[in-house]
């Protein structure tokens, strides 16, 4: 797997009292074409109307960036298509498009298009980076104001970040905690402070931190939709999941060696597997009776391994929470929650699946959920790739 990972994630809080947002963020990956397109759009007003405008804008911008069409023409098409607001008699919504293309990971180029959103911020580590933007006037017929689109190109390498957000972020706290709101400069300073403390912070955590800060500036009652998205280029965080004893006993040693030498986090799922690893490490497995729930047996601790869990019950529960996209904060404090947290904090997950059959599971009294290990691992991989855009690999021993 690759040595470089392009991490894209966003966080969002709707305007206080709204169940639907007027900010829409879309991202999609086209791994064959080595392209990632991210679109952030803010619709006029809030609630359903704004959501319709923003969704339309984001989807159009998204589709158009995958096509070879000229960007000025794309922008005009978007604005001509938007429905007109009944109250304000205008059709309007802002957008930012980041079209990331990477023929190779040494050559990551972002085509950036900004229309009326707060300017995108760029950082290299803890250093803010400025760059040239081309100003393009649209001169559209029926425009109610001067329409200016900024277009630019930036090259990214390891340690670089792009941060985009809507005006809900820059205007947060306006008139409450800050006379003019947080403003771009305030957001930039906050990012610098956050990154200085945690240089390897993930896009997920950074976007969450920014959104939560804006929310608190607004006095915990957001006055506009608050959305922030982060694109960062960094070394991948890797996790190894080992489950099931190897088919032959000779395989044990090799498995132990793999676990020992793996660089990243390690999860061992399955009692017998844990005993094998513990024997090879010369360490003891200790069951942690404080973390379990009626559906999931307790997790254990083993020196040299980040998490030890029971096998099939835990894995099948992990598969179903991944498929349902349940956040780990909604789960009881058990092995599944710990498992999920580690998976969420990884970019590349490698599975090593032992194919030995467990005699204890051949008893007809055992529930059917304890299915076939391979099927369950297949479900986990599928959900990780589809729902969470993680890279996975699988190997049988």
């Amino acid at each position, binding site marked *: 797997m690759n040595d470089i990972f392009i991490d894209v994630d966003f966080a969002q809080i709707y305007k206080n009292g709204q169940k639907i947002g007027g900010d829409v963020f879309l991202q999609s990956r086209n791994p064959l074409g080595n392209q990632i397109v991210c679109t952030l759009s803010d619709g006029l007003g809030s609630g359903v109307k704004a959501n319709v405008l923003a969704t339309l804008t984001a989807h159009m911008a998204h589709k158009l960036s995958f096509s070879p069409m000229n960007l000025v023409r794309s922008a005009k098409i978007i604005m001509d298509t938007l429905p007109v607001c009944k109250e304000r008699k205008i059709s309007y919504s802002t957008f930012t498009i980041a079209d990331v293309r990477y023929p190779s990971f040494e050559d990551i180029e972002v085509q950036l298009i900004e229309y009326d959103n707060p300017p995108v911020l760029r950082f290299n580590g803890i250093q803010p980076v400025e760059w040239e933007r081309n100003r393009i006037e649209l001169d559209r017929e029926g425009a109610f104001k001067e329409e200016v689109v900024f277009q630019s190109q930036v090259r990214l390498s390891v340690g670089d970040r792009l941060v985009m957000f809507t005006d809900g972020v820059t205007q947060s706290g306006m008139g409450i905690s800050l006379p003019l709101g947080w403003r771009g400069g305030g957001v930039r300073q906050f990012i610098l402070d956050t990154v200085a403390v945690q240089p390897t912070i993930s896009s997920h955590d950074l976007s969450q931190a920014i959104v939560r800060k804006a929310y608190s500036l607004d006095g915990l009652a957001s006055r506009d939709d608050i959305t922030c998205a982060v694109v960062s280029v960094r070394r991948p965080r890797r996790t190894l999941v080992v489950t099931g004893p190897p088919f032959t006993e000779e395989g044990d040693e090799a498995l132990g060696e793999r676990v020992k030498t793996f660089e990243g986090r390690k999860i061992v799922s399955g*009692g017998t597997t844990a*005993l094998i690893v513990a024997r090879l490490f010369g360490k003891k*497995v200790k*069951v942690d009776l404080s973390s*379990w729930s009626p559906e999931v047996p*307790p997790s254990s601790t083993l020196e040299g391994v980040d998490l030890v869990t*029971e096998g099939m019950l835990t894995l099948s529960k992990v598969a179903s929470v991944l498929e349902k996209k349940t956040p780990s904060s909604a789960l009881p404090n058990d092995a599944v929650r710990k498992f999920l947290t580690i998976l969420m904090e990884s970019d590349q997950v490698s599975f090593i699946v032992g194919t030995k059959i467990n005699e204890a599971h051949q*008893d007809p009294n055992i529930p059917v959920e*304890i299915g076939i290990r391979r099927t369950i691992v297949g479900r986990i991989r599928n959900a990780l790739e589809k729902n969470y855009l993680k890279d996975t690999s699988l190997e049988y021993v």
Partner: protein
Amino acid sequence: MKREKIQVRICVGTACFVQGGADLLLYGDFLNPDMLGECEIEGTSCLGGCKQAESTGLKAPFVEINGKIYGSVTQERFIQLLGEAMHA
């Protein structure tokens, strides 16, 4: 004179957990505090009882008390076994 604590290991392997072992992990709720104070309870991965089920005739869930393995342990039986171990 201080007595040795009773060493108790509850199997939390998959087979035991789904067949009643989970109920035993609530020991904090159903054992009386005096009894609880006399025991050193820990979880353990498979005790191996399920693999010898045919020869011993014992069924899951398994519990090991002072080195001896017992099968088909319910909450009531668990209390009874610990009571026996205390007065042994």
